[in-house]
């Protein structure tokens, strides 16, 4: 008898049986079962709010299921608790990172495993080498002594990844771990994923970037409205099929841009804008009704240029003209007064009042846009704006009174977008408007941007996502080392051209 004949299929490292979870009246998970084999990457896909993060929180013990069980190592748990989960080798990178803002990067990386080891003493000095090792392994430049609250989103995400990798996990769960990362960082993460896989670790991976999903995973489980509708080998799926299972609709990523009237006025003009050491000699124009893409690698200066226009990052040379008149942009207030809006990168933590309702959050930024002749709040207009945006952005929530905290990650982002649209700025800049948004809704959001542009707004979309830029932008600027190196127009706005210019 050969040894292979003796081995049946490998037994799962993790099994989830008949999980049901409701929040008040909302059923987040409805009888979900899964198993995870050692050495495989299982991808969880599904629309925003379909229950992916909830399932993960139940596996890690952060939430208690209503019914169902979790089986790890032959132990059956009717509900997990975080300590048991970590002890059984389950590590999670949460969608909201779950880091300690007041502690340093090094301490964040090592603290969880120290807790799990039931250690009594802690030594900051001894923590450093362990943290340094994992940071080096990933080839990162993280300042280990910086407090996490001072980091950029990308660095926070990298810290969360390091923390999950530092202990020897047997099950590694990653809830949208790549939303803020550059291609190089994603590639390095994937190298590590492969290495863990060969060591027999089971991985669960959640992402709305379907090319990533298909590249890294062996099996894909698709959830729709809290139900597991398909589990299938990745080789048998393509983005189209996944989208169809997720949404029940065909996916549309073709280019739709309106014909710009050559005479339509220039709403924004930059002349030689610069800040020494950050970006230089940035000049471009944006016309009424135009959607302008800005792309480049992370750190190329694309975000700084946008933040300069929003008065967050200073500039030391150049002029910005809005509707032909030079404006002063020394503060966010200056920018807002000039009619410029900015939906930032870090939407989950910036600008949302988590415990307030969706309605309050949508209207929070624009009381002045909703006043009557007498300067009082125009309640009817307020209600119309809220209901209109809530419906148009298809926020998944029972009603507009639900607190933002109870929303899924992607739905919370829609509320931020709604908040800015409610303000009706003349110029709206969006940094990664569809990061973390499911593919169905992505098309919808792009549709909304097209409609806003058609109604006269000038829009700047800052994004990594070449297909998205192609789908909606009239022109695309490529930024490299703080300079605009290319302005693509017409037929040059194509996925391959953009990727090539960015990487050059």
């Amino acid at each position, binding site marked *: 008898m050969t040894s292979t004949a003796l081995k049946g299929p490998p037994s799962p490292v993790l099994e989830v049986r008949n999980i049901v979870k409701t929040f008040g009246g909302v059923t987040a998970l409805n009888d979900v079962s899964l198993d995870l084999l050692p050495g495989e990457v299982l991808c969880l896909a599904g629309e925003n709010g379909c229950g992916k993060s909830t399932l993960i929180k139940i596996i890690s013990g952060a939430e208690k299921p209503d019914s169902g069980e979790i089986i790890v190592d032959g132990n059956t748990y009717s509900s997990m608790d975080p300590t048991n989960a970590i002890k059984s080798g389950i590590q999670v990178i949460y969608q909201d990172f779950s880091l300690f803002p007041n502690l340093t990067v090094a301490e964040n990386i090592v603290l969880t495993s120290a807790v799990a080891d039931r250690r009594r003493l802690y030594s900051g000095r001894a923590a450093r080498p362990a943290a340094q090792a994992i940071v080096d392994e990933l080839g990162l430049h993280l300042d280990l002594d910086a407090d996490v609250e001072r980091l950029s989103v990308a660095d926070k995400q990298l810290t969360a990844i390091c923390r999950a990798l530092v202990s020897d996990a047997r099950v590694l769960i990653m809830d949208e771990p790549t939303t803020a990362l*550059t291609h190089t960082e994603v590639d390095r993460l994937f190298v590590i994923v492969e290495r863990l896989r060969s060591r027999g670790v089971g991985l669960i991976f959640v992402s709305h970037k379907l090319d990533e999903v298909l590249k890294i995973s062996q099996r894909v489980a698709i959830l729709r409205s809290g139900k597991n509708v398909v589990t299938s080998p990745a080789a048998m799926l393509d983005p189209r099929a996944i989208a169809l299972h997720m949404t029940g609709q065909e996916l549309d990523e073709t280019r739709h841009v309106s014909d710009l009237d050559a005479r339509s006025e220039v709403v924004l003009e930059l002349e030689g804008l610069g800040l020494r050491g950050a970006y230089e000699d940035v000049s471009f124009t944006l016309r009424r009704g135009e959607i302008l893409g800005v792309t480049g690698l992370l750190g190329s200066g694309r975000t700084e240029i946008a933040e300069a226009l929003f008065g967050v990052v200073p500039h030391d040379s150049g002029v910005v003209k809005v509707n032909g008149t030079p404006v002063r942009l020394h503060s966010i207030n200056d920018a807002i007064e000039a009619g410029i809006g900015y939906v930032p990168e870090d939407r989950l933590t910036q600008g949302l009042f988590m415990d307030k309702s969706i309605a309050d959050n949508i209207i929070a930024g624009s009381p002045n846009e909703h006043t009557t002749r007498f300067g009082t709040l125009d309640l009817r207009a307020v209600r119309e704006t809220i209901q209109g945006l809530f419906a148009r952005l298809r926020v998944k929530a029972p009603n507009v009174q639900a607190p933002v905290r109870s929303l899924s990650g992607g739905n919370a982002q829609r509320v931020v977008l709604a908040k800015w649209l409610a303000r009706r700025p003349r110029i709206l800049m969006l940094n990664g408007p569809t990061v973390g948004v499911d593919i169905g809704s992505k098309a919808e959001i792009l549709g909304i941007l097209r409609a806003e542009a058609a109604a006269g707004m000038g829009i700047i979309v800052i994004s990594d996502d070449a297909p998205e830029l192609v789908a909606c932008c009239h022109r695309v600027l490529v930024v490299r080392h703080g300079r605009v190196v290319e302005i693509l127009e017409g037929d040059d706005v194509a996925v391959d051209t953009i990727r090539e210019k960015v990487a050059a």
Partner: protein
Amino acid sequence: MSGASLAIPDRLRLLRGANNEGVLAVVLLALIVAMSIANPAFFTLPTAFSILRSSIVPLIFALGVLMVIISGGIDVSFAAIAVFAAYTTVRALQSGTPDLGLIGAFALALLIGASLGVINGFLIAKFRLPTLIVTLGTQGIFKGALLTYVGSRYIADLPASMAQVSTTNLFEVSTPTGSAYLHILVVPAVLLAIGLAWVLRSTMFGRSIYAIGGDVEAARRAGIRVMRTQVAVYVIAGTMAAAGGMIYVIMGRSASPQILVGSELDIIAAVVLGGASIFGGRGSVLGTTLGVILVQVIYNSLILAGVPSAWQRTAVGVLLIIGVGIQAVASRRSSRASVIDETYQKQEVPA
């Protein structure tokens, strides 16, 4: 930014300390220098020792409050716990029980303090109630219970073992302006400070307190036993309050349920001035110690300057607001600064 040019801001950052301890030390020094110039009577060993002496009890209270504030809460019941524990102990020793000795008396008081701390901790951790409301409530309950069940009499004659300590000095230095005495009870205060600093920095319990103050949900997900840690924090805070109460009674050589009323403000002001964040997650023993001494120096200066005592309380109120104000401004600054820092840092790393 190159590595070399980073060194200076980095060194400055180190000097300033994680919670602006450096700034506080400079302010304290400046105040002492100014007072010494204005009034030579200030800059003497007796004054220094008397400030240290008057800092003993506030420091012990402040250490307990510091721990609670780092964990993301606030405790306004410590003075009530202190009085409850100390007065009950003195009453118990008086009413017939054989003199337990100093150790026995302290053990009893600490036990009472710990039990009252359990009540706070349980209510806060189990029902996730706001800490200010809970401790405001228990403060009233402890005071009421003390008056109703234990007594309200002023006690002027402490048990012998306690009375004896009140006149013991660590050492005595004769100076031209008269003899200066350093009270023996600075020793436990200093030991407590060193002990708590060690616990906060080098034990998992201490780090868990910071973690909980930083983000409770993240702490729970990291497997930290939040409830247990929170209860422990309030138990320790209660115990420390009891110790502070006993020392207060010993040093004042009398006990009454009316003592320490209204001292909460001074203590919380000192802790916040010492760099602890009212939002939780930040604070250090060094900063708190400097904050306590600063408040005492200010009191002393105001007395020397002949400011009426009513105004002294106003001064502390102003200080508290300044302390909180500095925190708010600093955090706004740093969030702005970090955006700009990143602008430069990102250039370092070609993508």
